[in-house]
């Protein structure tokens, strides 16, 4: 169905200056001043321009790539890309050797320059990151790929710059799988959709003939698990997004739901509901062995593994109301960790391992928050009329979730959109989607 370009990026590391530069972003603080950065359009020669127009229908793929980078850096909230109108130096000259005084004059602290060529159906991109205050190069890289892959080149450059300046892995060369929604609330049509993290290249993976919910990526491959009501039998499915093949997970005599992969990608963990009781089960994807993890007359759902696969956090109403619990991966040592006022749901373990993100319902408001894995240090990041289902960026820095608006008595005014927020609670922003959207799940980095 979806063809993922299986291309290999040839990465040449032709120069890396070691650390001790002046600029570095302190990302431990929340309310920081974003770093002023100049993203010079990547230079493109006349011949490449012709090829760019012919092959990509894009006039200047160099400036398009720099726009991708600029947008990514801006969206992260950690960078402030400066207006190109203020740039004094031409892209080709800046790429050879920037006049640092000119860039310092417009208050840039870092500068990205580069060059693209399209020849023989190959796109070659070089870029350099410069430290303006120290007056020297921080990084230089080159990529060769097929021209149609130019947006991904922009994402990879963004990741490299982000990593060099923050010391953490980036999250730009990633995708979001979500549920696209259309139609009135009482007869909503839902489809699986996938897009680049910045909202481009949307593709629909199902036609909307049956209800689909809660897609989640395998962190180690291009597989997705989700809930489908195919033939009115709600079951957990496994979908290979490269080949489009799908299969039911396990052979359960009832509804299976709330699926998620284990971080090593070897198991699916989910709920199975029977006779009014939902418990947590796993299925090993290699030998298909099904294991029961919880056995309790309450509702046990929304399971999520710790990154080391040793623990599971989940949602249960065994105390009488929805709360968050942690147990060992074999189901032993069950401990309640949420004790604040209100109801707690959808716990998701951070890829860094130290935090659990959740949805909280209290006095008619919904919150997205994080707490430590023992339940201490609860922090609410955002409050709204309705929002839930946070999913972590692969570096554990950003949460994506969905938010619904209130309808009036006729059911008008309803919408469902994706939003993201920084772990610090700052930089909350809507993630653009072609249709209404819910249940987002963030992929791992595509290139590594």
């Amino acid at each position, binding site marked *: 169905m979806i063809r993922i370009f299986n291309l290999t990026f040839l990465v040449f590391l032709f120069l890396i200056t070691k650390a001790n530069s002046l600029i570095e972003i302190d990302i431990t603080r929340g309310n920081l001043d974003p770093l002023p950065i100049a993203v010079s359009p990547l230079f493109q020669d006349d011949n490449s321009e012709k090829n760019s127009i012919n092959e990509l229908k894009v006039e200047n793929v160099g400036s398009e790539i720099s726009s991708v980078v600029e947008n990514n850096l801006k969206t992260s909230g950690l960078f402030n890309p400066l207006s190109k109108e203020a740039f004094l130096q031409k892209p080709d000259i800046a790429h050879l050797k920037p006049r640092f005084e000119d860039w310092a004059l417009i208050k840039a602290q870092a500068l990205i320059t580069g060059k693209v060529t399209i020849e023989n159906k190959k796109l070659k991109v070089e870029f350099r990151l410069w430290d303006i205050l120290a007056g020297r190069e921080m990084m230089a890289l080159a990529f060769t790929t097929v021209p149609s892959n130019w947006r991904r080149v922009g994402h990879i450059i963004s990741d490299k710059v982000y990593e060099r300046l923050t010391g953490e892995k980036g999250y730009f060369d990633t995708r979001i799988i979500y549920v696209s929604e259309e139609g009135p609330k009482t007869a909503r049509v839902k489809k699986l959709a996938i897009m680049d993290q910045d909202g481009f290249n949307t593709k629909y993976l199902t036609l909307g003939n049956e209800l689909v919910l809660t897609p989640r990526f395998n962190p180690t491959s291009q597989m997705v698990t989700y809930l489908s009501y195919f033939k009115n039998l709600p079951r957990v499915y496994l979908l290979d997004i490269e080949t489009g093949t799908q299969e039911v997970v396990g052979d359960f005599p009832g509804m299976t739901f709330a699926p998620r992969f284990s971080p090593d990608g070897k198991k699916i963990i989910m709920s199975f*509901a029977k006779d009014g009781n939902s418990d947590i089960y796993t299925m090993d994807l290699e030998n298909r062995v099904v294991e029961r993890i919880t056995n309790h007359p309450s509702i046990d759902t929304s399971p999520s593994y710790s990154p080391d696969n040793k623990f599971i956090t989940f949602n249960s109403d065994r105390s009488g109301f929805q709360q968050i619990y942690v147990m060992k991966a074999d189901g032993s040592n069950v401990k309640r960790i949420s004790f604040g006022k209100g109801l707690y749901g959808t716990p998701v373990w951070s890829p860094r391992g130290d935090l659990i993100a959740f949805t909280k319902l209290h006095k*008619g408001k919904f919150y997205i928050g994080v707490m430590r894995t023992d339940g201490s240090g609860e922090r609410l990041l955002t409050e709204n009329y309705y929002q839930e289902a946070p999913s972590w960026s692969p570096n554990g820095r950003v949460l994506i979730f969905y938010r619904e608006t209130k309808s009036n008595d006729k059911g008008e005014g*309803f919408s469902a959109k994706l939003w993201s927020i920084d772990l610090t609670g700052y930089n909350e922003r809507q993630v653009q989607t072609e249709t209404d959207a819910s249940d987002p799940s963030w992929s791992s980095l595509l290139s590594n």
Partner: protein
Amino acid sequence: MNFTKSFRNTFLVILLSLIVSACATKTTTTKVEGQMQGDVYTGTDTVKYLADGVPDRVFFATNESILTTKSRDTLRKQANWLRENSSINVVVEGHADERGTREYNLALGERRANAAKDYLITYGISADRISVISYGKERPVDSGSNPLSWSKNRRSVTVKAN
């Protein structure tokens, strides 16, 4: 045992509704007079009928799957109708309102559908004539975002399967 349990539940529901109506006189929690008791829907707006006098659905309180006196009355009518029409099988659909997380609501809908199914079984309907499906909050019948709309959506609906 079933009897004592249902008796206890009835008692609880009566007690609860007394408390709630007592509160309602002081505050304005029940804005829509006569349409909700506590927060369980008691109107007939969205109700359809399996046959004359046999309502197809019962309603639940927030986060609950306990059958009210009225719900049990409706389900007994359904059981009678099913006994008289032994060739008909049914699906009990469980639903939740929009004010809960999606996955928990799927489980809650399944719990509600099974509460209705179990009651039908108690009244002599064979378990293999009744299947259940939960839609969680995915199929509201009222699209408003207010307590009355939500109360109509917290329901289980008995639907002919053949």
